[in-house]
């Protein structure tokens, strides 16, 4: 382990940022508890304290083990997750939960449990991944793992809302797509790091477009095609869009060729159009997007209700705990804890709160890009770009869907939406970022000292 051989690394910036953020989380719990009880009662703060301890512990471990990685990422994650925990704690707790190992956990408690699992995974990767050879050299094995995950989903998966994304593993259900995302990023990073000089220098001109030399390009394209086919087969449009975005972005960063992105976008538009014509559910979703008010009580119910919630929030928000979450015993917005968690936050914290959340995500993204730019080698850079893009695009796609900027797709807002697989995958990606960052020793610069 690194820590055993390195000095303690005082992570001062991380401490100074994390401290106020972690203070605010219990405060948020208190405010929501008072608002919900309608009386000045502090209420149950167990989960808030647990959350604070998790992040404080993560910070301490990074210090003790001498981790010299980026110091702004963990506070940004802590802030996003904190807002999410406050909201999840405030929503009806029977929306989701676990009953396993003799435990009956509500939604927020289950989420906290996954934060614990995620943070352990993050620390293990951030500290334990001394050499990225295991990622780089076995990229085809990772690809195989990915395909296996997908195949498993196809065979064993069961459907939720028309998309077959879940595998039942006894006590927990997992979404292999979330982990597949990481495997895909690792594979593409490995492949591009190896072939990127070839892809950049040699090219074949067709008309005014220069296209990549096919022999170098085909293996990746083939794998990607298989993945996309299966994802589309699973009816998971959000993931398809996300994967495509990650792929194009990494290709762009590796080659600097806008033409690749252009070709990709043309293919995407064409593919979308074909999908629109061929698949009823795609068409339905686009039609709802174009005019949700056409059927406000039917197909447009969710987006219309989300838009109303945004409007209710206004600039200042209705206040924590004071949003209109249920109406006559039913949720005003179905899936408020996953697909529409952003809307619930924007309702209670207003435009200011929404911008703050977006700001935390931007800190995460731009620190991630900085880590990529400072990475010691191409693989590290591309890996960092891949995971950063994944987290950033997820944020943009789901908020864009919540605000009717693009058609709604069911993907999670990293660290905020309820969902164990998503939380775990997001923390693994943070672990990868921290590992890349540690190896380039960016910590000193990050602290500004």
């Amino acid at each position: 382990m690194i820590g055993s051989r390195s000095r303690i690394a005082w992570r001062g910036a991380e401490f100074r940022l994390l401290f106020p953020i972690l203070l605010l989380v219990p405060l948020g719990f208190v405010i929501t508890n008072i608002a919900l009880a309608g009386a000045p009662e502090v209420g149950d703060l167990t989960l808030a304290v647990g959350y604070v301890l998790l992040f404080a512990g993560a910070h301490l471990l990074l210090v003790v083990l001498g981790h010299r990685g980026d110091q702004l990422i963990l506070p940004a994650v802590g802030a996003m997750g904190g807002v999410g925990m406050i909201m999840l704690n405030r929503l009806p707790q029977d929306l989701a939960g676990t009953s396993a190992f003799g435990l009956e956990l509500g939604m927020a408690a289950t989420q906290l449990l996954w934060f614990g699992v995620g943070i352990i995974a993050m620390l293990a990767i951030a500290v334990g991944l001394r050499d990225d050879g295991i990622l780089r050299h076995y990229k085809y094995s990772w690809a195989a793992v990915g395909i296996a995950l997908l195949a498993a989903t196809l065979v064993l998966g069961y459907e939720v809302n028309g998309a077959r994304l879940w595998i039942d593993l006894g006590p927990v259900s997992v979404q292999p797509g979330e982990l597949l995302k990481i495997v895909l990023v690792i594979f593409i990073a490995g492949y591009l790091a190896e072939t990127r000089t070839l892809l950049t220098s040699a090219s074949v001109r067709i008309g005014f477009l220069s296209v990549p030399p096919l022999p170098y390009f085909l293996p990746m394209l083939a794998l990607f095609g298989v993945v996309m086919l299966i994802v589309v087969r699973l009816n998971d449009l959000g993931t398809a869009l996300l994967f495509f975005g990650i792929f194009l972005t990494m290709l762009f960063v590796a080659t600097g060729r806008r033409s690749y992105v252009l070709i990709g976008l043309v293919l995407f538009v064409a593919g979308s159009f074909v999908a629109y014509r061929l698949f009823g559910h795609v068409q339905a979703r686009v039609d709802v997007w174009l005019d949700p008010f056409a059927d406000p009580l039917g197909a447009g119910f969710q987006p219309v209700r989300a838009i109303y919630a945004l409007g209710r929030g206004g600039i200042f928000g209705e206040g924590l705990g004071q949003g209109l979450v249920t109406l006559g015993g039913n949720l005003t917005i179905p899936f408020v804890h996953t697909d529409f968690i952003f809307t619930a936050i924007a309702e209670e914290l207003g435009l200011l709160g929404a911008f703050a959340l977006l700001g935390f995500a931007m800190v995460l993204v731009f620190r991630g890009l900085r880590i990529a730019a400072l990475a010691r080698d191409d693989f590290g850079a591309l890996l960092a770009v891949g995971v950063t893009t994944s987290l950033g695009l997820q944020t943009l796609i789901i908020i864009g869907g919540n605000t009717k900027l693009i058609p709604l797709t069911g993907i999670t807002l990293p660290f905020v939406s309820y969902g164990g697989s998503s939380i775990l995958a997001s923390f693994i990606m943070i672990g990868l970022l921290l590992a890349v960052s540690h190896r380039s020793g960016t910590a000193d610069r990050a602290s500004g000292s």
Partner: protein
Amino acid sequence: MIATNIRRLGVYLMLAFAVVSGSITWWQVVEAHSLSTRPDNPEVLAARRSLLRGTIFDAEGQVLASSEVIDGLSRRTYTDPAMTHVLGYSSLRFGSTGLERTFEDILVGQTDPNPIRDLVSDVLARQPEPRDLTLTIDRRLQDFAAAQLGADAGAVVAIDPRTGAVLAMVSTPTFDATPISGDPDGAQEPMDALRNDPAEPLLARARQGLYVPGSILKVFTAAAALDAGVISPDTTYPDQPREEREGFVVDGFTIREHDLGGIEPALWPLSEALQVSSNIFFAHVGLELGAERFLEYARRFGFCGPIRMGPPERALSVTPSLVTGSLDGDCGPFSGDVDLASASFGQGQAAVTPVQMALLAAAIAGDGVMPDPYVVRDVRAHADGDAPADEILDSFGSGGGTRVVSAEAAAATRGGMVDAVNGELGRLYAGQGDITLYGISDARSAGKTGTAQLGGEQAPHSWFIGFAPAQEEATPRIAVAVLVESGGSGSDGAAPIAGRVMAEWLRLSGGD
């Protein structure tokens, strides 16, 4: 080189975040207010379910609608079925209509009429407080007008031509809105009955009913032509006496006079033409005015588009009235001279609402200024008892209006309308609109009848528009439009109702 690409990626991502920020701002700031008033907004639904709703009072402070919360559910009670088509209903089951809908957010207190106080309440997260409305409508006149229509289907609209304040707006048949606004479980059956009723009681005829105007539209034709300088009060048409008997050939189509009831045709100027309601005279006037100017004046008077009664976002809407064939709610072009000549005497493809016709009368009564009509006078703090609170939060109706014709053109038209009720020839037609028949001795009324021919076996719709007091030097205090569906001739059905309503208002409003 990778670092450069990453920097470029950073710029693209920054742009993407900016776009997303913009879309959040769009809903949370730009659209926030208009979303808050939409009736299927869960906030509105929730408020309607549980929040106390403000009381609605008439101009004299009489309760028209009030709410109480029973077992956590807000129930609405209406005191006067004659008011239903103005107030609308607020049903837990069927949503809301009328003023209950346009003032929804204010009634339940989710918006303060004052934007600054609204912002302060927002910051302080104040609980919503219901607000009360006071209308311009006087319940006594409203009930009186409704009683005059009795079992007939029709409408009475009365407006103060000086301010645009609506004094009465009755649509019959009407219904009691309380059963569909009370217990949500018991609301379905009465609503089904209303929906299936062939008499269409759910239709607010005064605002939403489109009817052939018949001869009342001659008032418009006269005012427009006088204003354009096409005619003067003394203008006559030499061929008119002959054409009264033989017909007036336009484009090969013969326009015939209605039954003059034994009156001998003569060379009639404007006053006499209005008194006997000569179709031939007004066909000439319309053709001389021309299609283009006819349409231009129609638009000035508010035809060819929706009319708003009240402040923009909270207005009761009035279906567009038309003088030609409809083109997406707008007036299309005239199909030819026959169409234009027919519209000039209120037939052809003309179709109008009673509100539009009351505004026509009000424009003549107001010396050529058509007032902006409004129904809600002010918003007040919620009253504890049955009397309106003193604290006025917002008030409407600035007394503004639009000049549609010159004062001279209005005066000449008014003269013709006074003669139509009181003149030697006119008495035979519109004499029933004379307020002196109904206990008023010191004032005269002006008016015009309309008998809207529908073709076939159908009995014509009966119309009257007018205003009072109308003697020289007097400033009219009420302008009315009365429609009785299939009520026969204007003089039989509508004129006596209009006369009584005007007389009643002069009595109620006293000598001021």
